[in-house]
């Protein structure tokens, strides 16, 4: 709790300094484009310092529990799968990337048979393609398959 608070305090302090540096960098009058970055910089520095004062960081029991190792792995897996989906979209195209993404998540989160998994995957991928790409005409890259 205390370590997290100090870490966050340091982060806000750094953001405050960054904002002040940006205000100094901008070539404009003080009541112009640099006004808000300067005011915000001072505020962030003050808030950063506030994190270092135990009396201001909030009640000790207020922090939710950190996930245990299996839960942490699940969160990282989900975020990683999402990042890979986004990275793969321009190359694989919406239909294929979405089908793979849904398939992986269904296998990881659900306990369906392969037949059921493939049926749900197909339904979600085709339906979302029909609604968003075909009907609403969203210009999502079509990838090497052209879909």
């Amino acid at each position, binding site marked *: 709790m205390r370590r*997290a608070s100090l870490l*966050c305090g340091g982060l*806000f302090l750094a*953001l405050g300094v960054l*904002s002040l540096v*940006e205000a100094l960098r*901008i*070539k*404009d009058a003080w*009541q*112009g*484009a640099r*006004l*808000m*970055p300067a005011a*915000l910089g001072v*505020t*962030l520095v003050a*808030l950063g310092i*506030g*994190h270092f004062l135990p009396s*201001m*960081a*909030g*009640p000790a029991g*207020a*922090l*939710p529990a*950190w*996930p245990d190792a299996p*839960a942490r792995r*699940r*969160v990282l897996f*989900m*975020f990683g799968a*999402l*990042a890979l*989906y*986004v990275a793969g*979209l*321009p190359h694989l195209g919406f239909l294929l990337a*979405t089908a793979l*993404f*849904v398939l992986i*998540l*269904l296998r990881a*989160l*659900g*306990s*369906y048979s392969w037949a059921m998994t493939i049926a*749900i995957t197909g339904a*979600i991928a085709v339906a*979302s393609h029909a*609604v*968003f790409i075909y009907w*609403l*005409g*969203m*210009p*999502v890259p079509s990838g090497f398959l052209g879909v």
Partner: protein
Amino acid sequence: METLGFLLHGFAQALTLQNLLFALIGSVLGTLVGVLPGIGPTSGIAILLPLTGFLPPVPAIIMLAAIYYGAMYGGSTTAILVNIPGEVASVVTTLDGYQMARQGRAGPALAVAAISSFVAGTLGLIGLTFFAPPLADMALRIGPPEYFGLVVLSFSVVVSLSGASLVKGLSSAALGALVALVGLDPMSGVRRFGFGSSDLLGGIDFIAVIIGLFAITEVLVGVETSLTAVSVAALGKLMPLWDELRSCVGTMLRATGVGFFLGLLPGCTPGAISFISYDVEKRWSRTPERFGHGAIEGVAAPEGANNAATSGGFVPLFALGLPATPALAVLLSGLMIYGLQPGPLLFEKQPEFVWTLIASMYVGNVMLLILNLPLVGLWARLCKLPYAIMAPLILIFSVLGAFSVRNSFFDVGVALAFGALGYLMVKLAYPTAPLVLALILTPMLESALRQSLSMAHGSPLILVTRPITVILILAGLALTAWTLLARRRR
């Protein structure tokens, strides 16, 4: 009396069988597109706008109004069911609406959102009908210093949204303000916090941020806790209890007042207004601790204020051609195709057009209530869908929603980054609502402050010499002090 005559003539136009049918089609399509997570009302109306192209002017206007109301209502459905606000104004609805859904009370949450939207929307329309011209005149007298006072007053909400630690709440708001400053300065064109990236020049888009902070974060939290469905509780009654509805009557009326009068001010966004309305309700309540944990008033207040603000927003839209929201801007462009020429003389020059439009908004509102209340059960059952299916659906919609903002993968990356940030904020007990509020208010604060300083040749004294500004700033300070004292007592 003349007003009533014009309105009745408008109703005569709107209530023909053919026009009612177009109102129904507009409501259904608007709701369907609004319900699609990530699409939101602005894109929804833009997508459906060409559909009205083949119609004669009167049915086209009626269908447009119905699409608008349908899309606005649809946005709150996703906020309640899957924690994805379809638009800025629905962000506050997630605070209690999603909690209600998780408790198996999605039905009452959706129903009260529909009823509150209907009541406040209709009362707002009555205000629009009878007071539009004088109110537009009044809204014009509000200058930048008064806006500054109003934003200071709105910022006082941050303290009551701060949760257990004031420092964390304020830090969250400061982070939101920092994000809002990224990009080209709208007044001077100076690049701020650009770090040499061309993507950052256009700023960080609000929709991408809220998709990340709400939808992606929620999925990460759900996966961490091995959630099996959005709601594991039994699906209770689909309609709110009579006592709950009765307790929401005052809420709806207050929300209408807050929403309609603040909605009159061009630039005062429904996002900020729904936060203010939520805060008013929380302060009014004898049990404010229920808010954020599934209080039904926490759904009724922002939804009502949002719809009343929409009605109020039509006043500057008609009288000055100033749309208060992006969705209204798209609607305005559609109306202009059919000959609407906004301006102070609109009511005199095009009475038939305006009153038909106003009458069709009444019709659209009623149609929406009739259409949506029976659908509540269907939507609520979505909460029971296995999470293994719901999670990928939410994430696909999130990615598409973020992408659709500017057809850019940069915005999708922003949503991902804010998803991770939101998860860390949940784990470190930083409230996300102040971040969102500051993101909405900071551009308003900055432009009002700089315009005020410019009016006074750089002197800040202008902020303490205009009576309305002083009253608003003092009210903001008083509310902050009140909240701080209440916190200390707790």
